[in-house]
């Protein structure tokens, strides 16, 4: 187990290296002069030169990459071209709203999607099953900002139950904080719920045909006990895997959700950085998100033995 854990951790290093190399190389492989693109149309030649120097584009590629990678390992993500603040500081200022949004969405999605999938598998072929599957197709099809605007229109503008936009820091109390995050998490959770519900249903259908389920039924275990104790436990691994993979959807969706609901998080920071072509910030945020994604999936991989003791390494 320890050997496997170590091997698995070591295996993420090349993946992260490829991510870093790619995010870094984008500056070099993009067509045209990146310094000119970043500087914008109204820039003077001096501006372009200043940006070229600050991005290190005037120095050799490999030297620059080694330097950049070394800085990242020390936690220095560079300096923003627009605000002149360290990128890590800018990320720190914006991380709480994004983290809150993602954690609440994650909890919400799991609490809704898993029972949905279980019930759909149990009632396979009935109208309940069809309703759940129909919802899943809709969840995949309606983009996150469409759901966001629709929810905001109905529940904030028309019914006035929840705030339309904005974010209240956690320090100002649990309810004000949660109030602002309900609509965004439901909007962001749509695709995620659809994904998890589909996999839960598919895996449960397979598990429910196993002999030990028949045994449980024969010895008189009640239906909920069979579904949630005997079957769900055995269906856990694929479900947990897809929850990990789906974090990519959460990250991508957060960028949009934060724009719709005016939440000052990392997504908003990314969008602002794109509009200002503040490449060091974009680089930093993408690295952070990708590393998070890799780490989440690493942890899930290592947790497999916990969900299914039959798995041994």
């Amino acid at each position, binding site marked *: 187990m320890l050997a496997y854990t170590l091997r698995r951790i070591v295996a993420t290093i*090349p*993946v*992260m*290296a*490829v*991510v870093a*190399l*790619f*995010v870094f190389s*984008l*500056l070099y492989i*993009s*067509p*045209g002069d*990146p310094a000119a*693109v*970043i500087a914008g149309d109204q820039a003077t030649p001096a501006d372009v030169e200043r940006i070229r120097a600050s991005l290190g584009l005037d120095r050799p590629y490999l030297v620059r990459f080694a330097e950049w990678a070394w800085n990242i390992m020390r936690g220095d993500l560079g300096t923003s071209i627009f605000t002149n603040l360290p990128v890590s500081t800018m990320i720190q200022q914006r991380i709480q709203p994004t983290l809150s949004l993602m954690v609440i969405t994650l909890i919400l999605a799991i609490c809704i999607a898993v029972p949905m999938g279980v019930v759909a598998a149990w009632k396979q072929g009935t109208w309940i099953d069809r309703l759940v599957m129909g919802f899943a*197709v*809709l969840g*995949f*099809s*309606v*983009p996150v*900002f*469409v759901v966001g*605007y*629709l929810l905001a*229109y109905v529940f904030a*503008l028309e019914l006035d139950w929840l705030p*339309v936009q904005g974010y209240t820091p956690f320090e100002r109390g649990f309810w004000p904080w949660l109030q602002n995050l309900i609509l965004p998490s439901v909007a962001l959770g749509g695709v995620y719920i659809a994904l998890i519900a*589909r996999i839960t*249903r*598919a895996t449960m*259908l*397979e598990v429910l045909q196993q002999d030990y389920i028949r045994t449980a039924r024969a010895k008189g275990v009640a239906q909920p006990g069979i579904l949630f104790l005997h079957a769900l436990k055995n269906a856990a691994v694929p479900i947990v895997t897809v929850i990990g993979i789906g974090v*990519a*959807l959460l*990250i*991508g969706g957060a*960028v*949009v959700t934060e*724009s*719709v609901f005016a939440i000052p998080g990392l997504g908003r920071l*990314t*969008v602002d*950085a*794109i*509009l200002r*072509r503040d*490449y060091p910030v*974009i*680089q930093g*945020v*993408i690295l952070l*998100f*990708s590393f998070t*994604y*890799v780490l989440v*999936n690493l942890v899930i991989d290592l947790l497999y033995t916990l969900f299914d003791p039959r798995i041994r390494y």
Partner: protein
Amino acid sequence: MSTSTFQPGALPRAALRAEDVAAAAPMPDILPPVKARRGFLGFLRRNPTIAVGGGLMLLIILMAVLAPLLWTVDPTALAPARRTREPSALYWFGTDMLGRDVYSRVLHGARVSLIVGFAVAFFSSVIGLAIGLTSGFIRWADAIIMRIMDGLMSIPSILLAIALMALTRGSVGNVILAITIAEVPRVSRLVRGVVLSLREQPYVDAAVASGTSTPRIIVRHILPNTLAPLTVQATYICASAMIAESILSFIGAGTPPIIPSWGNIMAEGRALWQVKPYIVFFPAIFLSLTVLAVNLLGDGLRDWLDPRMAKKV
């Protein structure tokens, strides 16, 4: 008793004479003949998901192609005097803050979504197929290619597209390129998986044993078997590319604002959405319907091409 044991080889063949067979009474008509509808209509009847998805898709394609004939005006014509008119008999979907007709813009916007969706599906399938075949057949290349693909896949695809767009000037071509690069790793993984499992098939061994050259094996035995899963994957990529295009345009990193795309119309309506929600909602509805049509088509194709999966997912 040896006579009671059934022995297929010992059947009294000679007893069955030609006259008996000819004289046998015709089978009674217990079962009504199965009405297997043939042809295209029968196919649609047996695959309602393909029928609904395909029909909807066809309508949207027609709408995009015939946009200039469907009572639209110039979608970019400014008319400051007629700003933000509510939907009416004259302006079916109302006008935006620059007085442009939202109905005309939405209909023309379909073109961008469809072009991006189809182009990305096509290019990422072709490139992914080439990479997947290479890494499935050439051992030493496999390790390198798959490490690179793992790295690319750990960058959430919409962020990868954002990073690429941040460094190029916005154009439909660049949007297609950016989303294609983000989708290629998934296709290559799929193709590689199919290739690796096909290589173990006895008929491939037989082909190798009979001295068939590798390129011929690929073209005759491997390629045709990858087409079904690849087609299904391509429809899902088409759907997610349409969403990605609208997200990129919505956050200002996609199609140039001068081109009416659904993402752009929504981005422009964003500032006014609390008072004039229709500017956002009309493109949102069309986008959702289009993506829904493609997803239904994909689900239908999957069930049709791989009936074993149909009952499960």
